[in-house]
C-alpha cells in the first residue's frame, strides 16, 4: 500500500484529497500550512475532517506565512471565512502534535525511507523548509505530488494560482529539488468537477458523504459566482489520484520554472511546451532545460469523478 503524507490547507478540495487518500493509501500524517485560510483555521479544519471520518492520523501545524513578501491572499471568496464553509463539522477531540510540520515530514520520511510519497496541496513553505533543513530528504522520498500553479490561466492572478503564488520562493525550492515530482496544474485540475448530480448522490449517503455534500455545494456555489463554472472542482484530490490511480492520469515530462521577479508574472509556473526538437542549437538562456516534473496533461474525468464519489460514499 502506498505510504502518503499530505501537506495541505483545507480547503474543500483538500478535504476530499484527505478522505480519498485515507481509504486507498496508508496515510501517515497530515501537515498544515496557510493558504486557503490562516494556518490556525486550516489546522482546525484538518482535525475536524479527520474527526468526521474517525481517522486518527497525526496532524502537525506548519507555517503561517511565506518565506518572503506580502501577506498571503487567503481564498475566502472560494472557501468561506473558515476555509471550509458549508457544513457543520464535529469539534476536534484532539490537538495537533507538539511538533512542527517540518519535523513530522522529515521524521516520517526517515522512518519510511524510499517509500513515502509527499503530497503538496497548499503553499510550499513547509516542504521547502524541510528540504533545506534535511538535505537527505530528497533521497528518502519516493516522490512528491503537487497540485499548484498552471500551464494556462491562473486564479488569484491572471497567470498565477494560489498555492504557488502564496510562496513562490518555496515552490522554486520544491520544483528544483531533484525529487521525482508529479505535477498537476490548475488548467487540468479544474476539469474534474462534482456537479449537482454527484452532490445529490453524496447527500443520499452516510454521515461523512452527507457532510461532504454540504461542503462541496458551498464550494460549487462559490465557483459559479466567481468563475461561472458549474461544479465543485476537486483540484487537490487530482494530485492524489496521480499517485494512486496512474491509469487515470496521463503525464508528460516537462521543464518547469517558477517566476520570482516582482511583476505581473510573479508566482507563474513557466512550463516549456515549445516542442524544441533534440539537437536544435539555441543561444544561452533560450535552450530547453532538462525536464524536472511529470506534468499531468490529461485526466479521465468521468472515471476520476466516479472513484471519488464512490470513495466518499464508502465512509459510514
Amino acid at each position, binding site marked *: 500500500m502506498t505510504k502518503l503524507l499530505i501537506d495541505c490547507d483545507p480547503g474543500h478540495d483538500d478535504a476530499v484529497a484527505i478522505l480519498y487518500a485515507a481509504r486507498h493509501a496508508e496515510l501517515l500524517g497530515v501537515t498544515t500550512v496557510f493558504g486557503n485560510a490562516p494556518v490556525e483555521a486550516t489546522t482546525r479544519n484538518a482535525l475536524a475532517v479527520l474527526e468526521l471520518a474517525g481517522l486518527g492520523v497525526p496532524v502537525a501545524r506548519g507555517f503561517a506565512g511565506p518565506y518572503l513578501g506580502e501577506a498571503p491572499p487567503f481564498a475566502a471568496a472560494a472557501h468561506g471565512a473558515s476555509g471550509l464553509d458549508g457544513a457543520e463539522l464535529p469539534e476536534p477531540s484532539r490537538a495537533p502534535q507538539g511538533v512542527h510540520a517540518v519535523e513530522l515530514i522529515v521524521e516520517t520520511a526517515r522512518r519510511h525511507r524510499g517509500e513515502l510519497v509527499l503530497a503538496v496541496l497548499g503553499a510550499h513553505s513547509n516542504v521547502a523548509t524541510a528540504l533545506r533543513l534535511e538535505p537527505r530528504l530528497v533521497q528518502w522520498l519516493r516522490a512528491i505530488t503537487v497540485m499548484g500553479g498552471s500551464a494556462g*490561466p491562473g486564479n488569484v492572478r*491572471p497567470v498565477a494560482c*494560489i498555492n504557488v503564488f502564496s510562496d513562490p520562493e518555496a515552490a522554486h525550492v520544491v520544483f528544483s529539488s531533484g525529487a521525482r515530482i508529479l505535477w498537476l496544474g490548475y488548467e487540468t485540475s479544474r476539469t474534474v468537477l462534482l456537479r449537482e448530480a454527484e452532490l445529490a448522490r453524496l447527500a443520499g449517503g452516510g454521515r461523512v458523504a452527507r457532510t461532504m455534500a454540504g461542503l462541496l455545494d458551498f464550494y460549487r456555489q462559490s465557483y459559479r459566482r466567481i468563475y461561472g463554472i458549474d461544479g465543485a472542482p476537486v483540484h487537490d484530490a487530482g494530485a492524489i489520484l496521480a499517485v494512486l490511480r496512474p491509469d487515470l492520469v496521463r503525464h508528460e515530462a516537462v521543464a518547469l520554472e517558477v517566476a520570482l521577479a516582482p511583476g*505581473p*508574472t510573479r508566482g507563474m509556473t*513557466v512550463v516549456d*511546451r*515549445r516542442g524544441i526538437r533534440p539537437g536544435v542549437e539555441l543561444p544561452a538562456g*533560450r535552450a530547453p532545460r532538462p525536464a524536472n516534473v511529470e506534468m499531468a496533461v490529461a485526466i479521465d474525468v468521468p472515471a476520476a469523478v466516479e472513484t471519488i464519489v464512490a470513495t466518499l460514499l464508502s465512509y459510514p
Partner: protein
Amino acid sequence: MPTPILIDCDPGHDDAIAILFAARELDLVGITTVHGNAALPQTTRNALALCTLAGLEVPVVAGAAEPLVGVRSHAPDIHGRSGLDGAVLPEPDRAPLPGHAVDFIIAEAERRKGELVLAGIGPLTNLALALRREPRLASWLKAITIMGGSCTLGNVTPAAEFNVWCDPEAAAIVLGAGVPVWMVGYDLTRRVGFGQADIDRLRGSGRRVATTLADLLQFYLDRQRRVFGLEVAPMHDVCAIVPFVAPELIAHRPTAVVVELRGEHTRGATVCDLRDKRLTGTGGIQDAAPPNVQFATTAETRALIERVLATLLRYP
C-alpha cells in the same frame, strides 16, 4: 471602400503572406519595416523584393533598427540568414522612400483620421515610437492590430513570443496607448498554418507569384519541422489581417493584457487575463483590469487557410 491599412513588419515568411493578402483584400497604404526576423536592411530589402515580385505599387519606408531598451535579436533558425530564405526573389525595382517609418505612420494616420488600421506584425518599436512622438496618433487611428504575444505558450522562450520578446517595452507602450488593439497570439497562430498539401497547391498552380511563395514556404515549413516539430508552416502574421477581411474566421474576447518587463523566465511574456472572473472585490483574488485588447481565442483554421490560399492564387 476597403479598410485602409498600414503594415509595420519584419519580413519574414509569414509577413510576406500577410502583405500579399492585405494588398489584394484591403487598401494597403504603405509598408514600414523594423528589426526582427532579420536586421533592418534585410527586412527592408525583403519588403521591397516582395512588392517587386507581386507588382505592388506600395510605399515602403524603413524604421527602427534597434529595440527601445533591450538588445537586438533575430530568427535565422526559422527564416534563414536573409530573413526570407528559400527562393530567389527579384532585385527590388526601387529604393525605400526617404524618411523614417515613424513619420510616415503619423502622416498617413493624420491624412485618414479615424479610418486607418495600423498592423504591427513584427517587434512594435516603430508603433511605440510613433505613439510617443505624436500623442494625437492614438486618437487618429481606427485600430491597431498586432500579431504578438501569447497566453502562456511561448516560442522564443517558454513564456514569451518572439515579436513581443524582441522589444517588450515597445509592446507595453502600444498595449497601454488607449487605442483599440486587436491581438492574436502565438498560442492561436501556431495551429493556423499551411500544410505540405497547401504548399503543393501553390506550386501546382504554375503561377509565378504562387510558385515563388511555394519555394519560400517550403523552406519555412522545413524549419518549423526541424525546430518545433510542427507539421504546418504557421501563418502567424496573416491572422492579424484576417479580422478586417473576414471577421467571422477568428473569435475575439475583450481581455486585459499587460507585458512582463522583468523576470529571468518571463520577460516579454504577455499576461492575458482569461480567468472568466465574474466577481470583484474578492480579497486575495485580484480583480481583472479593464479590457484593453480584443484577444483572439479561436479560429476557423481550415477556412482561414483556404481564404488566404484563394487570394494568393489570384496573383499572376
